């Protein structure tokens, strides 16, 4: 059985879809935060079968947590203080994502001209679409 120590003061990102943990780790630039981080993948989940978890000791200045909700509305974020859950954060997906990822459409203007921000707007159906070519953003 895999055992990771409980964190004392920090953040737990739970119920990450299996395989997405490493992508979140990179998106949130966690390796640059200078604090202990544990990325656990494929652990058992009563709700989803398996899941990934990220535990962060300390309270670094994290990028916009709304990105997490944008990627997966099932993600939960828990703030830990003195070893106990002090707050359950419900980040709201932002209306717009800028330079989180590149548009994957080779025929989009963003793929051939430099200096253009990759901007994605949230649609009524919760998808993020490139504002230039309207292709849906996928981070899988």
């Amino acid at each position: 059985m895999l055992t990771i120590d409980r964190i004392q003061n920090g953040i737990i990102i739970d119920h990450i879809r299996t395989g997405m943990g490493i992508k979140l780790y990179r998106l949130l630039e966690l390796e640059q935060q200078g604090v202990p981080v544990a990325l656990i993948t494929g652990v058992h989940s009563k709700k989803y079968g398996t899941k990934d978890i990220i535990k962060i000791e300390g309270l670094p200045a994290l990028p916009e947590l709304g990105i997490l909700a944008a990627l997966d509305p099932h993600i939960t974020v828990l703030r830990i203080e003195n070893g106990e859950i002090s707050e359950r954060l419900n980040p709201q997906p932002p209306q717009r994502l800028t330079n989180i990822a590149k548009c994957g459409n080779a025929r989009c203007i963003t793929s051939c001209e430099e200096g253009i921000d990759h901007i994605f707007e949230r649609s009524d159906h919760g998808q993020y679409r490139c504002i230039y070519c309207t292709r849906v953003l996928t981070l899988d």
Partner: protein
Amino acid sequence: MRHLIEPMDFTVLETERLLALAEDIAERPEAYRDVCAYKKLATLFYEPSTRTRLSFEAAMMNLGGKVLGFSSADSSSASKGESVADTIRVVSHYADIAAIRHPMEGAPLRASQYASIPVINAGDGGHQHPTQTLTDLLTIQRRAGRLTGLTLGLCGDLKYGRTVHSLVQSMMRWPGNRFVFICPPELSMPAYLLAELREAGIPFETVERLDEAIPMLDILYMTRIQRERFSSAAQYERLKNCYILTPAEMQRGQAHLAVLHPLPRVNEIAPAVDDDPRAAYFEQAGNGVYVRMALILTLLELGLE
């Protein structure tokens, strides 16, 4: 300052006003022949599209204005690597309004972000072609007398046809319309569009044969099916003649049917159909000039009462 990058940039009311202006222009062209005197339209065509470019140029000339621009990227600063943003910033000093045709999706939107003049999307790759959609709407309105309560058949390549997608999304905005999609299974309407229709409660059906659908239609919109879109040559051979409009199919159509096509047509409409009074595709091209005239006036805020 407004731009037209996609059809939804105009509300339903604004679209109706623009079409009404286009109808007035068609009825009284002499009243508009000097409205754009001393105004210049820049046609920035990064890829060839002779008919669209000529239509825009004719529109501006009919309004008494002048035209400048380029007809391919080779003859523009793009060949030196200049960005769309820089080009439009410069052109904004030369012209009062610009029409941009570009092979890359989103290029006209990019231009509109840096332009100090109105920008019209004259087609961006397989993405949008809003003035074609407005042309289609005007043709339907002039033929049927309305944009409501119509049964529209869309025939041919419905999977990759941008004009078809745009027309459906536009006609959804007016009440009482229903759609008949006539296509082989591998070229069906994209799932996201069908989902939009269901969510809006708009009736539609999908059939494989044109001769079965045509008796129920008020409007038939034909598009070309390309051989390479089929997964197998055998499938293409089996289906290729099911989506060709001939006098035989026209005999099954109603007397008030109007047949549209964005052109150019290849073999999907037989030349024998051209003299049928229900063939509207050549006047459709003419309507494109009126629509572009109305659009130029609207964006330059010269729309007359």
